[in-house]
């Protein structure tokens, strides 16, 4: 098992954001983690990435407990992450952003030349040019998402945590991004957890889906099975019905 999450719980004061969530991930798998806003998927994600300490439960990565480790250590263990809203370093160039990740993101020290080569490879994988003069300011929404991904990939992760990577993209850009995650898994053998609230395009690429609602796991299975699960239909369509009711005055 690449990742085993058991009874993961996070409370903020009296509020339980994530409650006894368990799941496991095989090497080379793409897992979709979905749920409506406030379902606890970001909290789950941040606990794996080391940004939040679990209140209870365990997170085992490659057989070792990693719950409560700091983000730097999580990165060095081989888990890369992206941020929901891209957070590039604007004072550095595009290539420098990714070189920094390659240089500092690996547990064993790498030479600058090697970091440079790995950065160029990561940029090629996401389809950004490795031009040393290119600045972050020249990137649009899709370009920033790609940079975010390239930076995470440059740390040479075995597991990639991709946080709502498609928010703010148009339909063709979403398709491209989904294909890219598929290609990263296929070409680099990287295991991926993809956190989204848009269900559509995700279902095409992932092997398995976990659905969270109010901090609890309510469904797990293949995309097809989950899409037909009455509980999932309930939370997604239920939300839409509420929205429709609000839109149309009686």
């Amino acid at each position, binding site marked *: 098992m690449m990742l085993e999450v058991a009874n993961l719980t996070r409370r903020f004061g009296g509020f339980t954001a994530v409650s006894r969530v368990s799941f496991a991930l095989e090497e080379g798998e793409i897992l979709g983690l979905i749920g409506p806003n406030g379902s606890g998927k970001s909290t789950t994600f941040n606990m794996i990435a080391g940004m939040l300490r679990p209140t209870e439960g365990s997170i085992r990565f490659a057989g070792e407990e990693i719950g409560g480790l700091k*983000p730097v250590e999580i990165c*060095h263990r081989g888990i890369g992450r992206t941020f929901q809203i891209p*957070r*590039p370093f604007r004072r550095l160039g595009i290539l*420098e952003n990714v070189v*920094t990740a390659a240089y*500092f993101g690996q547990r064993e020290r790498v030479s*600058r030349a090697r970091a440079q080569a790995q950065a160029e490879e990561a940029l090629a994988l996401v389809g950004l040019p490795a031009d040393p003069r290119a600045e972050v300011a020249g990137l649009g929404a899709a370009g920033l998402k790609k940079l975010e991904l390239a930076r*995470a990939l440059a740390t040479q992760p075995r597991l990639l945590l991709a946080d709502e990577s498609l928010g703010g993209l148009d339909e063709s850009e979403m398709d491209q991004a989904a294909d890219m995650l598929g290609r990263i898994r296929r070409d680099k053998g990287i295991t991926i957890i993809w956190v989204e609230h848009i269900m559509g395009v995700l279902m095409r690429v992932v092997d398995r889906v976990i659905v969270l609602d109010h901090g609890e796991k309510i469904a797990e299975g293949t995309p097809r099975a989950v899409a037909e699960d009455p509980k999932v239909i309930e939370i997604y369509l239920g939300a839409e019905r509420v929205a429709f009711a609000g839109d149309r005055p009686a």
Partner: protein
Amino acid sequence: MSAGAALPRRLPPLAGLAALAAVPLVGLGNYHLHLAITILIWGFVYTAWSIMGRFGMVSLGHGAFLGIGAYVTAMLWNAFGLAPWIGIPIALALAVLMAFVIGYPCFRFRIVGHYFALVTLALGEVVRLTIVALRDHTGGSLGMTVEGVAGGTSLLALQFGDRGAFFYLALAVWLGGLWVWRLVDRSMLRYALEAASEDEDAAASIGVDVTRAKLAITMLSAAMTALGGALYAQYQLYINPETVSGIGISLQIVFAVIAGGLYVQAGPTVGAVITLLLAETLRVAVGHDVHGLDGTIYGLLLVLFIIYMPQGVSGFALALWRGLRDGGARRADAGAAAR
């Protein structure tokens, strides 16, 4: 790059260096040589501040390190006859230790921006007040005189009766400061600190140990600043708490670097020239009659620089020069990109 191509590029700095080395030989007279040495010493101190200041780590208390460098070296010499060759390393070690003790909690608990500035502001004052309080050993606010050697010159005591000799010492230290600045500029540490100064969470997510990177640059900056303080003491052979520690000198460092240019190698030195010329002009023009006038003018200028020339004089000049040089090429590029 071949040696043949590198030579023309290196020519201007080499020529500049040769001109600087010739300064004491051309008979400038004591006053101008004194100004030159002062600029080199403060240029070095300002460079020391800027190597961390450029990453948004604005210290308002570098007087603390300056004071430790000056007083520890001088006190070890006066009290125990310990030569600066041993005294300076001890002073530097103490400054680095203080940087660590203050820096670690700040960086570990993410005290950044205004709060970091306030912590350092307090630090500068604590060192000044400590010097004043230990008046039996430091001479208090009256200052202390570094005991001179017979004849005025001793390599062992790092004292030179001849200003020309001291000029070369200051020149060497100043060049060393520029070299360190360049080393940091080209290092991966700069990437880490640029990243951390913008977004600590994102930097940590790609494996940058933010606390460690910040500590490293702070300790380096502290050591250099302390060396500058020691050099100042060896040159003046007199120090007092106001000139090497406390808020006044700490803020002057910040002002000089911002005026000269925070992000350019030569910026802090340009700042040293500006502050010195300003101080000398004021001294000659109005004398010491109007108390606090220099501070008022510093403050006013600082505000003007921050508003109208945030890159400082040298940053502004560099941008202007690059604009003139690349103006034609950039317009051509823009035309090509538009197609």
